[in-house]
């Protein structure tokens, strides 16, 4: 708070006409609060995670604490089937979620970008789950999926399926059930971003294409899609990172179950550190997750030629 106050201090020296000559220290003063906060609460924790990853560190077993070298990492890659399982599930989760969110989001954005009666209301309703939290999404879908008074009961009333079915506690249905719940709030994110970018497509291009007799599909393929390319690459990347890291929804909806089938890597890490108190090993897992994430992002940006030819 005290740091924020520093901002309000009028930094310019009294000789005013020359105010345009940058006081040399001003930019540093301005970024100082942000930089300090990020150093203290992001950079330092990250470094301490790297440090702990080389340690045996478990507050409940202090007698075993000490330098571990690469022991934690060896254990991850040679002796931890859970690491592999949860990583594979994370990849599957991110891939399916981001792919479907992009597909539906793009379609929705194209639809609500048209001119039609009721557009403002349509947009507001379609985008509304965007602001709903992971926990609230879980609460809503717990109500929908519950075996006694959930949607399955009313489907069974109509003769579809059976009574007492709980999609969240059956290993064969939990994945699609969770995917649909997360789609519900994830699709509007893409729709909003893509719609924003659609507004900046030059109308002249479409008019020219129109004159040349291009079909609507061709216009979409040759004008709209290339224009959206960078926005799509960036938003899919951000979303993928976010979907990978986010634990709110699965933590509250399935708790990683049933039988660990919906445990993502971050969820596994959280369990390792919070429940098992194995901070050293959790830190090593975090480091590995971080490296994987960074590597995949780099590869993705390179392969997709982000910011490339217009």
């Amino acid at each position, binding site marked *: 708070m005290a*740091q*924020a106050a520093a*901002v309000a201090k009028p*930094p*310019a020296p009294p000789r*005013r006409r020359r*105010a345009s000559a*940058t006081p040399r220290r*001003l*930019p*540093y003063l*301005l*970024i100082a609060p*942000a930089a300090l*906060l990020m150093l203290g609460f*992001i*950079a*330092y924790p*990250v470094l*301490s*995670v790297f440090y*702990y990853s080389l340690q045996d560190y478990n507050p409940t077993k202090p007698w075993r604490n000490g330098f571990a070298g690469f022991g934690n990492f060896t254990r991850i890659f040679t002796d931890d089937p859970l690491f592999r399982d949860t990583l594979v599930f994370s990849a599957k989760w991110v891939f399916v979620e981001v792919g479907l969110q992009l597909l539906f989001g793009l379609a*929705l954005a194209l*639809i609500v970008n*048209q*001119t039609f*009666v*009721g557009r403002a209301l*349509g947009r*507001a*309703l*379609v985008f*509304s789950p*965007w*602001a709903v939290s992971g*926990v609230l999404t879980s*609460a809503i879908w717990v109500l*929908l999926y*519950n075996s006694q008074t959930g949607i399955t009961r009313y489907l069974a009333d109509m003769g579809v399926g059976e009574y007492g079915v709980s999609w969240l506690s059956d290993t064969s249905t939990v994945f699609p059930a969770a995917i649909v719940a997360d789609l519900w709030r994830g699709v509007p994110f893409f729709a909003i*971003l893509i719609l*924003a*970018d659609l507004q900046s497509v030059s109308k002249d291009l479409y*008019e020219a294409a129109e004159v040349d007799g291009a*079909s*609507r*599909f061709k216009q979409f393929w040759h004008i709209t899609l290339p224009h959206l390319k*960078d*926005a799509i690459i960036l938003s899919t990347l951000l979303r993928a*990172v976010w979907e990978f*890291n986010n634990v*709110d929804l699965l933590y*509250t909806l399935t708790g990683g179950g049933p039988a660990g089938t919906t445990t993502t890597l*971050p969820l596994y*890490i*959280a369990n390792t*550190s919070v429940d098992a108190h194995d901070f050293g090993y*959790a830190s090593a897992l*975090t480091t590995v997750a*971080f490296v994987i*994430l960074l590597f995949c992002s780099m590869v993705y940006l390179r392969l997709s030629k982000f910011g490339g030819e217009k």
Partner: protein
Amino acid sequence: MITKEATKAAPAPAPAVPEPPRPAKRRRAWDEAPRWQIYLPLGVYLVFTLIPFYWILLFALRPAGSTSLVPWPMTTAHFEKVWTDRGFGTFFQNSVLVGVATLFMTTLVALAGGYALARFDFRVKRGFMLALLCSQFVPGALLLVPLFEIFAELRMINSLGSVIIAETVFQLPLSMILLSNFIKNVPYSLEEAAWVDGCNRFRAFRVVVLPLLRPGLIAVGSFAFVHSWNHFLFALMFLNNQEKQTVPVGLNTLMSADSVDLGALAAGGIIAAVPVVIVFAFIQKWLITGFSAGAVKG
């Protein structure tokens, strides 16, 4: 799909929507898909979007044990129970405090930093930008343990301050990038003109730039509020005291009970949604412009 067919399928194109800001400006052929191609998929998607909302309303309003598909007879019993017995009144206050404090801290700090990034060239600028981008890859969830230790050191465990700081820090990078893009869109010459008229740099910023930043500030501020309102991991970890918990943690507690009280859960969910709905209704029209000006464009 082809335009000629399109016009055939919809011989009388619907009149352009009377949208307040720019009325009937665009009526292009490319714009006019057959009506059913709009309303059919939109309708299907709306059903998917709205049923869950209806479901939670239904459960919150109908009496316990009812299986009726309309919330009638209506009851407020669930709300009363959740608000007083389950502590949502207190949680709500805490959440508002955290949300508002995060909003102001994030906006102030990001505004200062964003201004520096937009207007100055300085030695560590590139490195700082890189750090901002990299921080996007750092999962807050995975820093829980070191963060917990830091706050324990600062004696801030069980104080809302820890959650406010943590939420602010993770909001900062993106907010700063957004705001610096907004500031870049305000011509520097406007500020310079104000200096010539005798304003110092701070006054010029306040009088000339700040009013033009409204969409950006609204976008960043409301994101900060909504995010901290919604986020629950930090609160779950750093606040052990029931009195200090926030709404999402309360919801999680309701959900993880052995036999979930569905009515209470639904009522709690509605309470959690109300502020977000209000913010959302308020920023609707700013949202699209905010994004297009700041987020995606360089």
